[in-house]
């Protein structure tokens, strides 16, 4: 939620991206907590240990993919921010708006 506020309310573009990654991390946390089983262990079989409870591997797979996709979008977003800075001279949203709509 705090990340959501940063994305919506802060005019600086880099701060928005940081807030976005906060937001994403919080959503990942939500998913992983759903997969946990009390008293269980991570879903990796160890030699010689039979009949243990395991936490579900499926949310973890989903979140692994999501983390990598998140870093990809962040990298691309930062590339766009750098180009915006070169073209407009500023990365504050209101100033960019003024340059575009004088």
């Amino acid at each position, binding site marked *: *939620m*705090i*990340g*959501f*506020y940063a994305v*919506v*309310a*802060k*005019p*600086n573009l*880099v*701060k928005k991206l*940081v*807030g976005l*990654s*906060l937001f994403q991390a919080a959503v*990942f*946390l939500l998913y*992983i*907590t*759903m*997969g*946990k*089983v*009390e*008293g*269980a262990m*991570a*879903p*990796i*079989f*160890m*030699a010689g240990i039979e009949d243990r*409870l*395991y*936490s579900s*591997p*499926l949310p*973890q*797979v989903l979140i*692994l*993919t999501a*983390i*990598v996709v998140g*870093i*990809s979008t*962040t*990298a*691309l977003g*930062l*590339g766009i*921010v*750098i*180009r915006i*800075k*070169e073209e407009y001279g*500023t*990365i*504050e949203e*209101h100033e960019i708006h003024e340059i575009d709509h004088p």
Partner: protein
Amino acid sequence: MVSLFSIFILTLLLITALAIVQSRNLFVAVMLSGIFSLLIAAIFFLLDAADVALTEAAVGAGISTVLFLGALALTAEREQEPPTNRPVALVVVVMTALVLIYGTLGTPRLGDPNAPVQTHVSPWYLEQTPHYIDIPNVVTAVLGSYRGYDTLGEVFVVLTAGIGVLFLLGKPSPRGSRGPESSAEDAGLRHYLIPRLVGRLLIPFILLFGLYVQFHGEYSPGGGFQAGAIIAAAIILYALLEGEARALLVLPRWLLTGMIAGGALLYGGVGVVCLLLGGNFLDYSVLMSDPVAGQQIGLLLIEAGVGITVTGVLLSVFHAFAARGEY
């Protein structure tokens, strides 16, 4: 005891998040977001998600911080005061938070073994993996084999992001690129003795660890994405210490571009080979005479493809950012 520790870390997370949003100095915000990622990785570990914790730590706390700092060096370091306060934003956020909290009231108790998540498909994966694939790390098995097609899409996403950044930042900056006579003596941190020494000691071990994570990903937390991030981090460390020019000698740009495409090609190629051998796309069982061995070979190859692409993309993005700089 564990839950007390979790509550402590969650409180730290909350404080860090508030500090990130409040701080005007973007450098501080980025460093704090690195700390935030590390804390989240710790909580993932406490929640039995070892693979996810490793990925979050390597990618979030490591690579993401470096990329943000690179972007900050090219843009601004401080954030400006917003011209108008926006109470609407706060209202929207609070309303969304209330709706979400209301939504979570219906979820099962944390850790309940009879929750719907645990009872439908998960037990099937946990029981059948030793039979079909026979590797200890079930997460890698699901990621690479049962859901291998999704992971192929993920590799393509990483590839696209790399290509996108290269399109955006490939040409030299309009301010004029650095002259070729920028002295190599001043590059990097060559004048600082301690970082150079420690870095030279650490980089081989970081690379070794990255390779270990890559190939041991079927037995312990690990796999292609984490390994790619760790190896890229080692090369980035070398570039920071010895200057970008020498890092480009180690892995020149044409090699990085080749890696970006080659890794995805390897992954898709394994799938096509499976087709040619008579199975379905990405059905590794047909790769060898014993279907279980075929699955393991297939996993090894596609994880290698993933690692190569991720390393290539992260390093290309880093070099694209670094080449834009004025120094």
